[in-house]
Protein backbone atom coordinates (compact mmCIF):
# COMPACT_ATOMS: atom_id res chain seq x y z
CA UNK A 1 0.00 0.00 0.00
CA UNK A 2 2.84 2.33 0.85
CA UNK A 3 4.32 2.42 -2.68
CA UNK A 4 0.92 3.34 -4.07
CA UNK A 5 0.50 6.16 -1.56
CA UNK A 6 3.99 7.35 -2.40
CA UNK A 7 3.19 7.29 -6.12
CA UNK A 8 -0.06 9.13 -5.53
CA UNK A 9 1.82 11.82 -3.63
CA UNK A 10 4.41 12.05 -6.36
CA UNK A 11 1.80 12.47 -9.08
CA UNK A 12 -0.49 14.63 -6.97
CA UNK A 13 -0.03 17.54 -9.35
CA UNK A 14 -1.33 15.33 -12.16
CA UNK A 15 -4.02 13.57 -10.18
CA UNK A 16 -5.67 16.67 -8.78
CA UNK A 17 -6.13 18.51 -12.11
CA UNK A 18 -7.16 15.31 -13.84
CA UNK A 19 -9.80 14.48 -11.23
CA UNK A 20 -10.94 18.08 -11.18
CA UNK A 21 -11.28 18.03 -14.95
CA UNK A 22 -13.13 14.71 -15.21
CA UNK A 23 -15.34 15.16 -12.17
CA UNK A 24 -15.98 18.77 -13.00
CA UNK A 25 -16.97 17.90 -16.55
CA UNK A 26 -19.27 15.15 -15.25
CA UNK A 27 -20.90 17.42 -12.70
CA UNK A 28 -21.32 20.19 -15.24
CA UNK A 29 -22.84 17.80 -17.78
CA UNK A 30 -25.15 16.40 -15.12
CA UNK A 31 -26.23 19.85 -14.02
CA UNK A 32 -26.90 20.97 -17.58
CA UNK A 33 -28.80 17.77 -18.28
CA UNK A 34 -30.88 18.18 -15.13
CA UNK A 35 -31.76 21.82 -15.68
CA UNK A 36 -32.64 21.47 -19.36
CA UNK A 37 -34.70 18.28 -19.29
CA UNK A 38 -38.49 18.42 -19.21
CA UNK A 39 -40.71 15.39 -18.94
CA UNK A 40 -44.43 15.13 -19.53
CA UNK A 41 -46.30 12.12 -18.31
CA UNK A 42 -49.79 10.78 -18.92
CA UNK A 43 -51.38 8.08 -16.82
CA UNK A 44 -53.73 5.65 -18.41
CA UNK A 45 -56.22 3.33 -16.75
CA UNK A 46 -56.58 0.15 -18.74
CA UNK A 47 -59.14 -2.64 -18.46
CA UNK A 48 -59.19 -6.09 -19.87
CA UNK A 49 -61.69 -6.24 -22.67
CA UNK A 50 -64.67 -8.34 -21.74
CA UNK A 51 -64.62 -11.68 -23.40
CA UNK A 52 -68.14 -11.05 -24.57
CA UNK A 53 -67.03 -7.89 -26.31
CA UNK A 54 -63.57 -9.01 -27.30
CA UNK A 55 -62.91 -10.20 -30.76
CA UNK A 56 -62.19 -13.89 -30.50
CA UNK A 57 -59.11 -15.24 -32.13
CA UNK A 58 -60.30 -17.44 -34.99
CA UNK A 59 -57.18 -19.61 -34.74
CA UNK A 60 -57.11 -20.17 -30.99
CA UNK A 61 -59.74 -18.43 -28.90
CA UNK A 62 -58.57 -20.07 -25.69
CA UNK A 63 -55.06 -18.59 -25.46
CA UNK A 64 -54.32 -18.09 -21.75
CA UNK A 65 -53.37 -14.58 -20.71
CA UNK A 66 -50.44 -14.58 -18.26
CA UNK A 67 -49.71 -10.84 -18.15
CA UNK A 68 -51.55 -8.26 -16.14
CA UNK A 69 -53.51 -5.95 -18.32
CA UNK A 70 -51.25 -3.04 -17.36
CA UNK A 71 -48.09 -4.81 -18.40
CA UNK A 72 -49.80 -6.09 -21.52
CA UNK A 73 -50.93 -2.67 -22.62
CA UNK A 74 -47.58 -1.12 -21.77
CA UNK A 75 -45.84 -3.73 -23.87
CA UNK A 76 -48.27 -3.25 -26.73
CA UNK A 77 -47.93 0.53 -26.63
CA UNK A 78 -44.13 0.25 -26.47
CA UNK A 79 -44.10 -1.98 -29.52
CA UNK A 80 -46.40 0.37 -31.33
CA UNK A 81 -44.15 3.33 -30.64
CA UNK A 82 -41.16 1.51 -32.04
CA UNK A 83 -42.63 1.49 -35.51
CA UNK A 84 -41.57 4.22 -37.88
CA UNK A 85 -45.02 4.84 -39.35
CA UNK A 86 -46.61 5.40 -35.94
CA UNK A 87 -43.76 7.64 -34.87
CA UNK A 88 -44.05 9.59 -38.09
CA UNK A 89 -47.78 10.07 -37.44
CA UNK A 90 -47.06 11.17 -33.87
CA UNK A 91 -44.38 13.67 -34.89
CA UNK A 92 -46.59 15.03 -37.66
CA UNK A 93 -49.11 16.09 -35.02
CA UNK A 94 -46.55 18.05 -32.97
CA UNK A 95 -44.29 21.06 -33.34
CA UNK A 96 -41.46 18.71 -34.27
CA UNK A 97 -42.89 18.14 -37.74
CA UNK A 98 -40.67 20.88 -39.15
CA UNK A 99 -37.60 19.26 -37.61
CA UNK A 100 -38.65 15.91 -39.05
CA UNK A 101 -39.09 17.42 -42.48
CA UNK A 102 -35.70 19.07 -42.25
CA UNK A 103 -33.91 16.00 -40.91
CA UNK A 104 -31.54 14.54 -43.50
CA UNK A 105 -32.00 11.07 -42.04
CA UNK A 106 -35.64 10.61 -41.18
CA UNK A 107 -35.14 7.08 -39.92
CA UNK A 108 -32.38 8.12 -37.55
CA UNK A 109 -34.42 11.04 -36.32
CA UNK A 110 -37.39 8.82 -35.58
CA UNK A 111 -35.14 6.32 -33.81
CA UNK A 112 -33.89 9.10 -31.58
CA UNK A 113 -37.48 10.20 -30.92
CA UNK A 114 -38.41 6.65 -29.93
CA UNK A 115 -35.65 6.62 -27.32
CA UNK A 116 -37.26 9.53 -25.52
CA UNK A 117 -40.51 7.62 -24.88
CA UNK A 118 -40.79 5.79 -21.61
CA UNK A 119 -43.74 3.48 -21.05
CA UNK A 120 -44.17 1.78 -17.73
CA UNK A 121 -46.80 -0.37 -16.08
CA UNK A 122 -47.35 1.28 -12.71
CA UNK A 123 -49.77 -1.37 -11.51
CA UNK A 124 -52.05 -4.07 -12.70
CA UNK A 125 -54.25 -1.57 -14.49
CA UNK A 126 -52.21 1.63 -14.62
CA UNK A 127 -49.82 2.59 -17.38
CA UNK A 128 -47.70 5.72 -17.63
CA UNK A 129 -46.52 7.18 -20.89
CA UNK A 130 -43.72 9.75 -20.65
CA UNK A 131 -41.58 11.72 -23.05
CA UNK A 132 -38.46 13.76 -22.26
CA UNK A 133 -37.09 16.67 -24.25
CA UNK A 134 -35.00 19.75 -23.74
CA UNK A 135 -37.90 22.16 -23.99
CA UNK A 136 -41.04 22.28 -21.84
CA UNK A 137 -43.62 22.21 -24.63
CA UNK A 138 -42.68 19.23 -26.76
CA UNK A 139 -43.07 16.39 -24.22
CA UNK A 140 -46.77 17.01 -23.58
CA UNK A 141 -47.42 17.31 -27.30
CA UNK A 142 -45.66 14.06 -28.00
CA UNK A 143 -47.40 12.08 -25.27
CA UNK A 144 -50.86 13.27 -26.23
CA UNK A 145 -50.16 12.71 -29.90
CA UNK A 146 -48.88 9.20 -29.19
CA UNK A 147 -52.04 8.30 -27.28
CA UNK A 148 -54.26 9.76 -29.99
CA UNK A 149 -52.44 7.88 -32.74
CA UNK A 150 -52.63 4.72 -30.71
CA UNK A 151 -56.39 5.04 -30.29
CA UNK A 152 -56.89 5.62 -33.99
CA UNK A 153 -54.66 2.73 -34.95
CA UNK A 154 -56.38 0.35 -32.56
CA UNK A 155 -59.83 1.35 -33.82
CA UNK A 156 -58.76 0.91 -37.42
CA UNK A 157 -57.27 -2.47 -36.63
CA UNK A 158 -60.43 -3.56 -34.89
CA UNK A 159 -62.62 -2.51 -37.75
CA UNK A 160 -60.42 -4.27 -40.22
CA UNK A 161 -60.27 -7.36 -38.04
CA UNK A 162 -64.01 -7.49 -37.45
CA UNK A 163 -64.69 -6.99 -41.12
CA UNK A 164 -62.53 -9.95 -42.00
CA UNK A 165 -64.14 -12.07 -39.33
CA UNK A 166 -67.56 -10.98 -40.38
CA UNK A 167 -66.81 -11.97 -43.95
CA UNK A 168 -65.65 -15.36 -42.75
CA UNK A 169 -68.80 -15.90 -40.73
CA UNK A 170 -70.97 -14.83 -43.63
CA UNK A 171 -69.28 -17.36 -45.84
CA UNK A 172 -69.84 -20.03 -43.24
CA UNK A 173 -73.44 -18.85 -42.92
CA UNK A 174 -73.97 -19.29 -46.64
CA UNK A 175 -72.61 -22.80 -46.52
CA UNK A 176 -74.70 -23.66 -43.48
CA UNK A 177 -77.73 -22.17 -45.18
CA UNK A 178 -77.16 -24.45 -48.16
CA UNK A 179 -76.76 -27.41 -45.85
CA UNK A 180 -80.01 -26.51 -44.05
CA UNK A 181 -81.92 -26.21 -47.32
CA UNK A 182 -80.55 -29.54 -48.49
CA UNK A 183 -81.60 -31.22 -45.25
CA UNK A 184 -85.07 -29.66 -45.48
CA UNK A 185 -85.37 -30.81 -49.07
CA UNK A 186 -84.43 -34.36 -48.14
CA UNK A 187 -87.01 -34.34 -45.36
CA UNK A 188 -89.70 -32.97 -47.69
CA UNK A 189 -88.86 -35.61 -50.30
CA UNK A 190 -89.07 -38.36 -47.71
CA UNK A 191 -92.47 -37.13 -46.48
CA UNK A 192 -93.77 -36.92 -50.05
CA UNK A 193 -92.67 -40.43 -50.89
CA UNK A 194 -94.06 -42.00 -47.67
CA UNK A 195 -97.69 -41.01 -47.38
CA UNK A 196 -99.02 -44.24 -45.81
CA UNK A 197 -98.31 -46.01 -42.57
CA UNK A 198 -94.59 -45.85 -41.79
CA UNK A 199 -92.61 -48.81 -40.68
CA UNK A 200 -90.23 -48.67 -37.74
CA UNK A 201 -87.23 -48.21 -40.02
CA UNK A 202 -88.91 -45.42 -41.96
CA UNK A 203 -89.83 -43.67 -38.73
CA UNK A 204 -86.18 -43.83 -37.62
CA UNK A 205 -84.97 -42.48 -40.96
CA UNK A 206 -87.51 -39.63 -40.82
CA UNK A 207 -86.27 -38.75 -37.29
CA UNK A 208 -82.69 -38.57 -38.51
CA UNK A 209 -83.68 -36.22 -41.33
CA UNK A 210 -85.58 -33.97 -38.93
CA UNK A 211 -82.57 -33.90 -36.60
CA UNK A 212 -80.30 -32.86 -39.46
CA UNK A 213 -82.64 -30.04 -40.34
CA UNK A 214 -82.72 -28.87 -36.69
CA UNK A 215 -78.94 -28.93 -36.40
CA UNK A 216 -78.54 -26.98 -39.62
CA UNK A 217 -80.98 -24.36 -38.47
CA UNK A 218 -79.28 -24.13 -35.07
CA UNK A 219 -75.94 -23.51 -36.72
CA UNK A 220 -77.52 -20.85 -38.88
CA UNK A 221 -78.80 -19.08 -35.77
CA UNK A 222 -75.42 -19.34 -34.09
CA UNK A 223 -73.57 -17.93 -37.06
CA UNK A 224 -76.05 -15.11 -37.39
CA UNK A 225 -75.42 -14.18 -33.72
CA UNK A 226 -71.67 -14.13 -34.26
CA UNK A 227 -72.03 -11.93 -37.31
CA UNK A 228 -74.10 -9.55 -35.25
CA UNK A 229 -71.49 -9.56 -32.47
CA UNK A 230 -68.59 -8.73 -34.79
CA UNK A 231 -70.52 -5.83 -36.20
CA UNK A 232 -71.54 -4.42 -32.85
CA UNK A 233 -68.52 -5.11 -30.57
CA UNK A 234 -65.99 -2.63 -31.96
CA UNK A 235 -68.56 0.06 -31.97
CA UNK A 236 -69.42 -0.66 -28.36
CA UNK A 237 -65.79 -0.66 -27.25
CA UNK A 238 -65.02 2.45 -29.17
CA UNK A 239 -68.03 4.24 -27.82
CA UNK A 240 -67.54 3.24 -24.20
CA UNK A 241 -63.80 3.90 -24.06
CA UNK A 242 -63.47 1.82 -20.94
CA UNK A 243 -60.60 -0.24 -22.28
CA UNK A 244 -58.07 2.57 -22.41
CA UNK A 245 -58.89 5.64 -20.36
CA UNK A 246 -56.44 8.51 -20.12
CA UNK A 247 -56.83 9.43 -16.46
CA UNK A 248 -54.18 12.17 -16.33
CA UNK A 249 -53.39 13.74 -19.68
CA UNK A 250 -49.87 15.06 -20.23
CA UNK A 251 -49.36 18.69 -19.25
CA UNK A 252 -46.61 21.05 -20.35
CA UNK A 253 -44.07 21.22 -17.52
CA UNK A 254 -42.80 24.59 -16.37
CA UNK A 255 -39.94 23.30 -14.25
CA UNK A 256 -37.26 20.81 -15.23
CA UNK A 257 -38.07 17.22 -14.48
CA UNK A 258 -37.20 13.80 -15.63
CA UNK A 259 -33.49 14.49 -16.00
CA UNK A 260 -32.45 13.40 -12.54
CA UNK A 261 -31.58 9.90 -13.52
CA UNK A 262 -29.63 10.89 -16.60
CA UNK A 263 -27.81 13.61 -14.67
CA UNK A 264 -26.96 11.18 -11.89
CA UNK A 265 -25.76 8.69 -14.48
CA UNK A 266 -23.50 11.27 -16.10
CA UNK A 267 -22.08 12.35 -12.76
CA UNK A 268 -21.63 8.74 -11.70
CA UNK A 269 -19.86 7.82 -14.91
CA UNK A 270 -17.56 10.83 -14.51
CA UNK A 271 -16.83 9.83 -10.92
CA UNK A 272 -16.07 6.24 -11.88
CA UNK A 273 -13.96 7.28 -14.87
CA UNK A 274 -12.02 9.75 -12.72
CA UNK A 275 -11.37 7.12 -10.07
CA UNK A 276 -10.39 4.58 -12.71
CA UNK A 277 -7.96 6.98 -14.37
CA UNK A 278 -6.46 7.90 -11.02
CA UNK A 279 -6.05 4.25 -10.08
CA UNK A 280 -4.53 3.51 -13.48
CA UNK A 281 -2.09 6.37 -13.12
CA UNK A 282 -1.08 5.28 -9.63
CA UNK A 283 -0.73 1.66 -10.72
CA UNK A 284 1.33 2.56 -13.79
CA UNK A 285 3.41 5.01 -11.78
CA UNK A 286 4.11 2.40 -9.15
CA UNK A 287 4.93 -0.17 -11.79
CA UNK A 288 7.32 2.20 -13.54
CA UNK A 289 8.84 3.29 -10.26
CA UNK A 290 9.61 -0.33 -9.57
CA UNK A 291 11.42 -0.58 -12.86
CA UNK A 292 13.38 2.64 -12.47
CA UNK A 293 15.83 3.83 -9.87
CA UNK A 294 14.38 4.85 -6.55
CA UNK A 295 15.93 4.69 -3.11
CA UNK A 296 13.52 1.97 -2.08
CA UNK A 297 14.57 -0.25 -4.96
CA UNK A 298 18.32 0.23 -4.91
CA UNK A 299 18.78 -2.75 -2.63
CA UNK A 300 18.42 -4.90 -5.72
CA UNK A 301 21.72 -3.48 -6.98
CA UNK A 302 23.76 -5.03 -4.16
CA UNK A 303 26.65 -5.11 -3.47
CA UNK A 304 26.52 -1.51 -4.67
CA UNK A 305 24.84 0.56 -2.02
CA UNK A 306 23.27 3.96 -1.83
CA UNK A 307 25.85 6.44 -0.60
CA UNK A 308 23.85 9.63 -0.78
CA UNK A 309 20.99 11.36 -2.52
CA UNK A 310 21.23 14.73 -4.16
CA UNK A 311 17.91 16.48 -3.90
CA UNK A 312 16.24 18.14 -6.81
CA UNK A 313 17.05 21.83 -6.59
CA UNK A 314 16.47 24.91 -8.65
CA UNK A 315 18.56 28.03 -8.85
CA UNK A 316 16.57 31.17 -8.35
CA UNK A 317 14.37 31.56 -11.39
CA UNK A 318 16.38 29.29 -13.59
CA UNK A 319 15.32 25.90 -14.68
CA UNK A 320 16.91 22.81 -13.19
CA UNK A 321 18.68 22.02 -16.44
CA UNK A 322 20.72 25.20 -15.92
CA UNK A 323 22.10 24.01 -12.61
CA UNK A 324 25.38 22.82 -14.10
CA UNK A 325 25.84 26.04 -15.99
CA UNK A 326 25.14 28.02 -12.84
CA UNK A 327 27.69 25.99 -10.94
CA UNK A 328 30.13 26.30 -13.83
CA UNK A 329 29.66 30.04 -13.88
CA UNK A 330 30.46 30.11 -10.18
CA UNK A 331 33.48 27.88 -10.60
CA UNK A 332 34.92 29.05 -13.91
CA UNK A 333 33.85 32.68 -14.23
CA UNK A 334 37.34 34.00 -13.56
CA UNK A 335 39.31 31.07 -14.81
CA UNK A 336 40.93 33.09 -17.58
CA UNK A 337 41.88 35.77 -15.06
CA UNK A 338 43.22 33.12 -12.78
CA UNK A 339 45.19 31.72 -15.64
CA UNK A 340 46.73 35.07 -16.42
CA UNK A 341 47.52 35.50 -12.76
CA UNK A 342 49.13 32.09 -12.81
CA UNK A 343 51.09 33.12 -15.87
CA UNK A 344 52.16 36.38 -14.28
CA UNK A 345 53.19 34.52 -11.16
CA UNK A 346 55.25 32.19 -13.31
CA UNK A 347 56.82 35.13 -15.04
CA UNK A 348 57.58 36.77 -11.69
CA UNK A 349 59.32 33.66 -10.53
Amino acid at each position, binding site marked *: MRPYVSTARRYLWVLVPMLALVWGAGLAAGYVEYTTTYEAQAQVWVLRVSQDLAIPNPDDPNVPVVQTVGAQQAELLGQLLRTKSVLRDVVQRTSLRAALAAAPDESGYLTQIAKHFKIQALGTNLVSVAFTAHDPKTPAEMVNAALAVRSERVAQARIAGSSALSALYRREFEIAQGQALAAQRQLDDFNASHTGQLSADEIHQQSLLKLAVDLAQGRLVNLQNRIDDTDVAPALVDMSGIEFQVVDPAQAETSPSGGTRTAATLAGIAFVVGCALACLLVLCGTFLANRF*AASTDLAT*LAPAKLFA*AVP*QVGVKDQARRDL*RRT*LAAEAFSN*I*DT*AESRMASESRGR
Partner: protein
Amino acid sequence: MRDLALSGSVPHAKRNGAPPRQHAPSADELASWVSLTAPVAGAFDALASRIDSSGVRILGFTSALSGEGVSTIALGTALALAALRRDAVLLVDANWIQPSLTSDAHLGSARGLAECLGSDASVAAVARPASRPRLWFLPVGDRQLARPSLRALESFVADGLDAFGAVVVDLPALLPAEQFVVPWPPVLDQLFVVLRDAATPLALVRQALEKLGSHVATQLVLNRASAPEARFRPTDRR
Protein backbone atom coordinates in the same frame (compact mmCIF):
# COMPACT_ATOMS: atom_id res chain seq x y z
CA MET B 1 57.63 18.49 -5.85
CA ARG B 2 59.93 21.41 -5.85
CA ASP B 3 59.13 21.98 -9.49
CA LEU B 4 55.50 22.17 -8.60
CA ALA B 5 56.19 24.76 -5.97
CA LEU B 6 58.34 26.76 -8.30
CA SER B 7 55.73 26.84 -10.96
CA GLY B 8 53.48 28.67 -8.58
CA SER B 9 50.35 27.24 -10.13
CA VAL B 10 49.86 24.08 -8.17
CA PRO B 11 49.52 23.84 -4.41
CA HIS B 12 52.15 22.26 -2.25
CA ALA B 13 52.12 18.59 -1.73
CA LYS B 14 50.06 17.46 1.19
CA ARG B 15 52.68 15.05 2.33
CA ASN B 16 54.69 17.95 3.75
CA GLY B 17 51.91 18.57 6.19
CA ALA B 18 51.48 22.12 4.96
CA PRO B 19 48.26 23.35 3.40
CA PRO B 20 48.37 23.65 -0.34
CA ARG B 21 49.30 27.00 -1.69
CA GLN B 22 46.50 29.02 -3.08
CA HIS B 23 45.52 32.51 -3.89
CA ALA B 24 43.59 34.27 -1.14
CA PRO B 25 39.93 34.79 -1.98
CA SER B 26 38.99 38.33 -2.55
CA ALA B 27 35.92 39.96 -1.04
CA ASP B 28 34.18 39.78 -4.40
CA GLU B 29 34.92 36.11 -4.72
CA LEU B 30 33.59 35.42 -1.26
CA ALA B 31 30.47 37.43 -2.01
CA SER B 32 30.07 35.51 -5.22
CA TRP B 33 30.44 32.24 -3.40
CA VAL B 34 27.82 33.28 -0.87
CA SER B 35 25.55 34.19 -3.77
CA LEU B 36 25.32 30.53 -4.67
CA THR B 37 21.83 29.85 -3.54
CA ALA B 38 21.31 28.01 -0.33
CA PRO B 39 19.44 25.04 -1.78
CA VAL B 40 22.22 24.34 -4.27
CA ALA B 41 24.95 24.65 -1.69
CA GLY B 42 23.01 22.51 0.74
CA ALA B 43 22.39 19.85 -1.88
CA PHE B 44 26.08 19.19 -2.47
CA ASP B 45 27.21 20.01 1.06
CA ALA B 46 25.59 16.88 2.34
CA LEU B 47 27.27 14.72 -0.27
CA ALA B 48 30.62 16.45 0.22
CA SER B 49 30.40 16.05 3.98
CA ARG B 50 29.83 12.37 3.64
CA ILE B 51 32.73 12.02 1.22
CA ASP B 52 34.95 14.07 3.52
CA SER B 53 34.04 12.03 6.55
CA SER B 54 34.53 8.76 4.73
CA GLY B 55 38.18 9.58 4.07
CA VAL B 56 37.92 9.13 0.32
CA ARG B 57 40.50 11.22 -1.50
CA ILE B 58 40.28 10.29 -5.18
CA LEU B 59 36.75 9.72 -6.29
CA GLY B 60 35.04 9.40 -9.63
CA PHE B 61 31.50 9.88 -10.81
CA THR B 62 30.00 7.90 -13.66
CA SER B 63 26.60 6.61 -14.68
CA ALA B 64 25.00 3.88 -16.71
CA LEU B 65 23.66 6.24 -19.35
CA SER B 66 24.35 9.76 -20.48
CA GLY B 67 22.33 12.63 -19.09
CA GLU B 68 22.14 11.42 -15.52
CA GLY B 69 23.75 14.58 -14.11
CA VAL B 70 27.24 13.21 -13.51
CA SER B 71 29.08 16.40 -14.52
CA THR B 72 26.75 18.51 -12.41
CA ILE B 73 27.28 16.33 -9.37
CA ALA B 74 31.04 16.20 -9.89
CA LEU B 75 31.21 19.97 -10.20
CA GLY B 76 28.89 20.60 -7.26
CA THR B 77 30.75 18.12 -5.11
CA ALA B 78 34.10 19.68 -5.99
CA LEU B 79 32.77 23.13 -5.14
CA ALA B 80 31.34 21.92 -1.85
CA LEU B 81 34.53 20.02 -0.97
CA ALA B 82 36.62 23.09 -1.72
CA ALA B 83 34.46 25.11 0.62
CA LEU B 84 34.49 22.40 3.24
CA ARG B 85 38.16 21.45 3.29
CA ARG B 86 41.25 23.47 3.96
CA ASP B 87 43.31 21.77 1.27
CA ALA B 88 43.06 21.98 -2.49
CA VAL B 89 40.50 20.11 -4.52
CA LEU B 90 41.16 19.12 -8.13
CA LEU B 91 38.24 18.64 -10.49
CA VAL B 92 39.25 16.45 -13.45
CA ASP B 93 37.20 16.36 -16.61
CA ALA B 94 37.76 12.81 -17.85
CA ASN B 95 34.69 12.68 -20.02
CA TRP B 96 36.15 11.64 -23.35
CA ILE B 97 32.75 11.57 -24.99
CA GLN B 98 31.18 14.84 -23.90
CA PRO B 99 33.56 17.06 -21.90
CA SER B 100 30.89 19.48 -20.76
CA LEU B 101 32.92 20.90 -17.87
CA THR B 102 35.75 21.78 -20.23
CA SER B 103 33.23 23.43 -22.51
CA ASP B 104 31.68 25.33 -19.61
CA ALA B 105 35.14 26.58 -18.66
CA HIS B 106 35.84 27.55 -22.28
CA LEU B 107 38.97 25.48 -22.23
CA GLY B 108 38.20 23.30 -25.19
CA SER B 109 41.53 23.95 -26.82
CA ALA B 110 43.58 24.03 -23.65
CA ARG B 111 45.96 21.32 -22.61
CA GLY B 112 44.72 18.97 -19.95
CA LEU B 113 44.27 15.37 -18.89
CA ALA B 114 45.02 13.88 -22.27
CA GLU B 115 48.38 15.59 -22.33
CA CYS B 116 49.11 14.34 -18.82
CA LEU B 117 48.26 10.78 -19.81
CA GLY B 118 50.37 11.12 -22.93
CA SER B 119 53.30 12.24 -20.78
CA ASP B 120 53.46 15.51 -22.65
CA ALA B 121 52.65 17.57 -19.59
CA SER B 122 52.45 17.40 -15.85
CA VAL B 123 49.39 18.16 -13.80
CA ALA B 124 51.23 21.14 -12.44
CA ALA B 125 51.52 22.59 -15.90
CA VAL B 126 47.97 22.14 -17.08
CA ALA B 127 45.75 22.33 -13.99
CA ARG B 128 44.11 25.70 -13.62
CA PRO B 129 42.88 27.44 -10.53
CA ALA B 130 39.17 27.98 -10.64
CA SER B 131 37.25 30.99 -9.44
CA ARG B 132 36.59 29.37 -6.10
CA PRO B 133 39.21 29.27 -3.43
CA ARG B 134 41.09 25.97 -3.20
CA LEU B 135 39.46 24.61 -6.33
CA TRP B 136 41.54 23.57 -9.35
CA PHE B 137 40.34 22.33 -12.67
CA LEU B 138 41.98 19.96 -15.11
CA PRO B 139 40.32 20.12 -18.55
CA VAL B 140 40.17 17.08 -20.77
CA GLY B 141 42.77 18.35 -23.23
CA ASP B 142 43.32 17.06 -26.72
CA ARG B 143 41.53 13.72 -26.74
CA GLN B 144 43.32 12.61 -29.90
CA LEU B 145 46.64 12.47 -28.08
CA ALA B 146 45.93 9.72 -25.62
CA ARG B 147 43.29 7.49 -24.15
CA PRO B 148 42.92 6.48 -20.53
CA SER B 149 44.82 3.29 -19.77
CA LEU B 150 45.54 1.71 -16.44
CA ARG B 151 49.27 2.28 -16.72
CA ALA B 152 48.93 5.91 -17.73
CA LEU B 153 46.39 6.55 -15.03
CA GLU B 154 48.57 4.98 -12.34
CA SER B 155 51.40 7.20 -13.44
CA PHE B 156 49.11 10.20 -13.55
CA VAL B 157 47.84 9.58 -10.02
CA ALA B 158 51.25 8.81 -8.60
CA ASP B 159 53.04 11.78 -10.13
CA GLY B 160 50.71 14.68 -9.90
CA LEU B 161 47.75 14.22 -7.62
CA ASP B 162 49.32 13.98 -4.22
CA ALA B 163 49.39 17.75 -4.06
CA PHE B 164 45.63 17.81 -3.73
CA GLY B 165 43.57 16.93 -0.70
CA ALA B 166 40.76 15.62 -2.88
CA VAL B 167 40.43 14.75 -6.53
CA VAL B 168 37.01 14.60 -8.17
CA VAL B 169 36.90 12.89 -11.58
CA ASP B 170 34.04 13.42 -13.99
CA LEU B 171 33.76 10.24 -16.07
CA PRO B 172 31.61 9.48 -19.10
CA ALA B 173 28.66 7.14 -18.98
CA LEU B 174 29.70 3.54 -18.61
CA LEU B 175 27.55 1.71 -21.11
CA PRO B 176 28.18 3.93 -24.16
CA ALA B 177 31.85 4.60 -23.27
CA GLU B 178 33.02 1.56 -21.37
CA GLN B 179 36.62 1.82 -22.60
CA PHE B 180 37.02 5.29 -21.11
CA VAL B 181 35.68 4.31 -17.69
CA VAL B 182 36.91 0.81 -16.95
CA PRO B 183 40.60 1.83 -16.51
CA TRP B 184 39.72 4.32 -13.78
CA PRO B 185 38.32 2.27 -10.86
CA PRO B 186 41.69 0.73 -9.82
CA VAL B 187 43.18 4.17 -9.27
CA LEU B 188 40.15 5.59 -7.54
CA ASP B 189 39.42 5.32 -3.84
CA GLN B 190 35.77 5.31 -4.60
CA LEU B 191 33.65 5.17 -7.73
CA PHE B 192 30.17 6.57 -7.57
CA VAL B 193 27.49 5.59 -10.06
CA VAL B 194 24.91 8.32 -10.45
CA LEU B 195 21.26 7.38 -10.99
CA ARG B 196 18.43 9.71 -11.64
CA ASP B 197 15.57 9.18 -9.29
CA ALA B 198 12.63 7.38 -10.91
CA ALA B 199 14.21 7.72 -14.33
CA THR B 200 17.19 5.43 -14.68
CA PRO B 201 16.22 1.88 -15.61
CA LEU B 202 17.54 -0.43 -12.93
CA ALA B 203 18.30 -3.13 -15.45
CA LEU B 204 20.80 -0.86 -17.20
CA VAL B 205 22.40 0.12 -13.91
CA ARG B 206 22.79 -3.54 -13.10
CA GLN B 207 24.35 -4.11 -16.49
CA ALA B 208 26.78 -1.24 -15.92
CA LEU B 209 27.77 -2.57 -12.51
CA GLU B 210 28.43 -5.98 -14.02
CA LYS B 211 30.80 -4.37 -16.50
CA LEU B 212 32.71 -2.76 -13.64
CA GLY B 213 33.08 -6.09 -11.90
CA SER B 214 32.53 -7.05 -8.33
CA HIS B 215 36.08 -6.17 -7.22
CA VAL B 216 35.43 -2.46 -7.71
CA ALA B 217 34.06 -0.63 -4.69
CA THR B 218 31.04 1.09 -6.12
CA GLN B 219 28.50 3.21 -4.39
CA LEU B 220 25.37 4.82 -5.70
CA VAL B 221 24.35 8.44 -5.72
CA LEU B 222 20.70 9.15 -6.36
CA ASN B 223 20.28 12.34 -8.31
CA ARG B 224 17.25 14.60 -8.29
CA ALA B 225 15.70 12.82 -5.36
CA SER B 226 12.29 14.36 -4.80
CA ALA B 227 12.21 14.00 -1.01
CA PRO B 228 15.73 14.31 0.33
CA GLU B 229 14.87 13.85 3.96
CA ALA B 230 13.04 10.65 3.19
CA ARG B 231 15.45 9.26 0.65
CA PHE B 232 18.76 10.12 2.25
CA ARG B 233 19.28 6.79 3.86
CA PRO B 234 22.90 5.77 3.42
CA THR B 235 23.32 2.11 4.03
CA ASP B 236 27.04 1.88 4.45
CA ARG B 237 29.45 4.46 5.76
CA ARG B 238 32.55 2.39 5.38
